[in-house]
């Protein structure tokens, strides 16, 4: 190989590698991201069965039910619509009624949202930003003192 050919091979190899990495990244971005919805957005959302989404809102008062063993369910609300969420796991420490929450999972055939993660917050003053924005958009946001 001449020097020029060698250099071309090296540059070509590098570019091919970067191209591969870019392709992988964009494929993964298309596949592995989940959209955020509030309960009221779900009517307009066109969800395919089994699509992973994140559902956020407030934990509706009086709806936390502990079932058999480790199962727990609660309603997530935006003060207009609410959705029942089933979860089999340990709820975060700061999970409380009337507090913001973000859950991730899929809808079951019975219309119950089966969450496999419930987002914790680390600070009692902290509200997940998506939930705060969503509540503000609906005009039901109350500034905390």
């Amino acid at each position, binding site marked *: 190989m001449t020097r020029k050919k060698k250099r071309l091979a090296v540059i070509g190899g590098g570019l091919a590698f*970067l191209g591969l990495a870019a392709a992988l990244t964009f494929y*993964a971005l298309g596949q592995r991201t*989940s959209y955020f919805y509030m309960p009221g957005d779900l009517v307009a959302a066109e969800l395919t069965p089994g699509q992973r989404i994140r559902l956020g809102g407030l934990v509706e008062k009086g709806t936390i039910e502990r079932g058999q*063993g*480790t199962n727990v369910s609660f309603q997530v609300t935006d003060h207009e619509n609410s959705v029942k969420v089933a979860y089999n796991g340990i709820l975060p420490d700061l999970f409380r009624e009337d507090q913001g929450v973000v859950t991730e999972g899929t809808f079951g055939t019975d219309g119950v949202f089966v969450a496999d993660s419930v987002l914790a*917050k680390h600070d009692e003053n*902290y509200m997940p930003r998506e939930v705060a924005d969503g509540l503000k958009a609906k005009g039901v946001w109350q500034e905390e003192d």
Partner: protein
Amino acid sequence: MIVELGHFALVLAFALALVQSTVPLIGARSGNQRMMAVAGPVTIAGFVLTAFAFAVLTVSYIQSDFSVVNVWENSHSLKPMIYKVTGTWGNHEGSMLLWVLILAAFGALVTVFSGNLPATLRANVLAVQGMIGAAFFLFILATSNPFARLDPAPFEGRDLNPLLQDIGLAIHPPLLYLGYVGFSISFSFAVAALIDGKIDAAWARWVRPWTLAAWVFLTGGIAMGSYWAYYELGWGGFWFWDPVENASFLPWLSGTALLHSAIVMEKRSALKIWTLLLAILTFSLSLLGTFLVRSGVLTSVHAFATDPTRGVFILAILMVFIGGSLALFAIRAHLLTAGGLFQPISREGALVLNNLFLTTATATVLIGTLYPLLVEAVTGDKISVGPPFFNMTFGPLVVPLLAVVPFGPLLAWKRGDIAAVSQRLFFAFGIALLATLGAFVFIDRVSVFAALGIGLSVWLVAGAFTDLALKAGFGKVSPSVALSRLFGLPRSVFGTALAHAGLGLTTLGIVSVVTLETEKFTSMKPGETVQVADYTIRFDGISPFQGPNYTEDRGHFTFLNSAGRELGELFSSKRLYPARQMPTTEAGIRTRGLSQLYISLGDPTVDGGIVVRIWWKPLVLLIWLGGVLMMIGGTVSLLDRRLRIGAPAARRSAAVGEAKALPS
């Protein structure tokens, strides 16, 4: 009064930073020695003032002076003393003060250790440091004043977030900031070189120790943060690909690339422009990390209450420094001449490959982290990019990189022989192959990934030691000669081997936990047992416990081996901190060798039991011990003779050391 003095010291430090960022720069442009000489004393004075301001805030915390808003919001008179001290930086204002304190300290260190630098380079470096300092002093004074007063002073404070009342707070943020801010030195050197339009191999020798030190601290900060989140959050995970974690991981990745490309520049005077660019990018990513964490623009499991208006300010700082330095780079980089030529198969070639992988990995993590922001800005949709994305992109990029790591240090400079190196690695490859087969036969016949991952980790460790053995000449000369040669090897060779071995151990820990851990999630009543891996766990009941500033319900567990013998007890509890009415989970952890048994307590069930989650995490400690070994490797390398003696005077002896370091 003393609090006002602290505030005043901070204002003075800001004024001095303005002097530091202009006068020496003008001096360097016009060749005025006296103006350049201003940089040193001003930097030292700025450091003393910042240290004073920081000490004042610390004293306010120790004395529980609730007339200071910051202390009132984040402290409590009953809080144990250690958390009163560490609480100083357990909040936004205090942590930014720590940030500038470390920046000022690094500036002072550069001043002390830069006696042999050319005067203009020194003046420019300190001036750039001054600019960074001025920006952040202004940020603190304008948006995040830690010395604001409250009148009348309340009797009791609101307490520190209980999750932060942990020894982790004493270690993690200072280490992380030492890493973040340490990269500002490489940045300042890069910008100074661009201002000068001159750069040579000696430049790389001055910059490398600072980069290495920053990298060691950042490695420690990330490892400590990961372990802290692991035991404190009670979720049993060591890495969540969370934006805040990525924010610290990004400068680590590009800093690692910088560390390797600076070697090429120092030894072979090649890759100059690329190294400069990496130095700029690494600190830019550190700034980006500060922005992401402090502004709260991304939803994070590690996010604490944040204030968006501050985010805008940091964003402005970010744009000025990144934009400014990249513009300077675009204008001046062509002035720098290209250096030594090399064949693709060579030590330089291997390091370029390392850089290609690491920067591409940095780019994918960066894209995954910022993509949600971009989508929201363009379409208004709120999306999240989770662990599956990162596993799918970062994994395939890093595995091949790990596979070729052992080749790098064995290749000769300029023109290497891949066949000869493969032959030398035959032994290491054999061990790795045995480990793979052994793992497949004896540990887990189902998961091919586990076996291959374990093989890869062993390959890394064995490869690192092969390098040492070959350079000492084991097998070629008599063992006693080889042993004495081994001790005569440059410390940087040991550093490389230790750091690469640490990488192998971390990989082993991750592979082992991801593929081989067992988890039981169930509800238990007192007296019931569950089987987890080789252990039987018995739940003995719950009893109340009173801590200094919390109450807790403590779950008692006993664990037994398969023969039914009791091996010990462990406690897992739910705490309530009354000052904030905040509950936390304290995981119960027992270490067996390098593995851990991990119990997390949930809520009581309707039938009188309690929900528990129990993990057996094999070799989990290696994840962090590998990080510690990387830190040790970096530190050993930092102690290399070559880096301690004055660079220009050391050229000859360094050349001798280099010849000795080459295999055969």
